């Protein structure tokens, strides 16, 4: 499925970051004993930004691939347009998940 090297890198890094970044953020918060630590805020903001942007890029990559294939299919079989649109919007879920993660992290 992941023959493309770029696809492997994007999906691999997304998976790792979505798992690791919130973990680091939580750890940084737990480690802090001060009432206000600027490092916690910066880490939280960076993590939320990473979760949002990487998920958006991944969704964009997936949509580009699906869009190309959908354009090819529709050129020959216009009757499957509903299916093509449905598949085209599915990766939006990835952005939504990133968005929710970002909200939770930024808390």
């Amino acid at each position, binding site marked *: 499925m992941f023959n493309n090297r770029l696809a492997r890198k994007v999906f691999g890094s997304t998976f790792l970051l979505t798992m690791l970044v919130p973990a680091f953020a939580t750890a940084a918060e737990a480690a802090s004993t001060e009432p206000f630590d600027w490092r916690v805020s910066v880490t939280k903001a960076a993590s939320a930004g990473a979760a949002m942007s990487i998920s958006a890029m991944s969704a964009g990559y997936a949509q580009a691939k699906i869009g190309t294939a959908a354009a*090819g299919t529709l050129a020959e079989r216009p009757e499957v347009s509903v299916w093509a649109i449905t598949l085209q919007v599915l990766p939006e879920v990835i952005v939504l998940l990133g968005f929710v993660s970002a909200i939770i992290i930024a808390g």
Partner: protein
Amino acid sequence: MSPEAAKVRTRPASGKEYGYANARLRGMRSRLFNRAFFDNLIAAPDIKTLIQDLTATEYGPDLEDALIHGRDAATIEAALKNHMIRTYQKVFSFLNDEGLYLVQTLLGRWDIFNIKTILRGKHIDAATDEIVEGLLPAGQLTAVELEALAGGEDIKTVIDTAVTWGLPFAGALREGYAEYLETESLADLELALDRYYSTWATQRLKKRQANSRLALSIVRMQVDTLNLLTVLRAAKESLETEVADRYFLEGGRDFSKSLYEELAAMSDIDEILDKLRETPYGKILDAVAIEYLSQNSISVFERSLEDYLMRHALGLAKGDPLGVGVAIAYLWAKQNEMTNLRIIVRGKAVGMPVERVRGELILV
């Protein structure tokens, strides 16, 4: 090929992006005729009904254009041929750079097939029209170029024209012609062309990428098929081993030179088939051995090997969905569809029994 043959293409994808092309090819594949439709065509009472059935399909526009010239089998065949060429051109227009390079390398065999048809026609002094009927411009030589070649007076004129145009296989033809003049046998000319094609295609597909390897597997199987048929023909016609050895083609997949020489030394077809059981071709050839005995014709083996090659090519579509296999499988499937339709049309025109027509088709 010739500079005139170079086509200006505008295509949306470049490089190695197969997403668009493969999705489009899958859409086109869904319109290929299925077994039930072929059964329907075979059962058509006459050629008129067959034309009606075909007009309702995507062959319609080509048939309507051709039917102005008449409603006979030759006209329908011309329409089928036009449709296939148009479809191939359409695929070339949206295929990416890598896919186009690989597919055109494989379709180079059509140029060889066409040149062989012209040479055979000239050898037996056939009329130009008859030769042109047997051509299929699916390679890089256009219909106009092939017609110009077929219009040559004799074999020498055809070869001279090829040399003047700077066609890549002209050198091979010149070498083969020297031997042809001595032996008066077309096999030498054909051997030179086959050698040229296998070397040329292997060279072009030598890269290590999966897609190149896939395309190369087809070329290597074609070489195996040619070697196998040479061995079987040599045994049937009791050719001397030295003569048979001359016709060996390098670059096969499962057919080494040592195996070829071993088989060429055998005089009995049964013995050859026994030995071939060690190779993937054994089972296929065994399956038609009885049919060979009843018909006593090597064409039985030729057909079963063609069938095997076709099924292998069609199976490539089940591999990598973002690879060149989908394009190769589609082009082969389209060619098979057209061949099946030509058989049905010919069969209908000469009143061939339905079961016989069905037996001649390769239905996948």
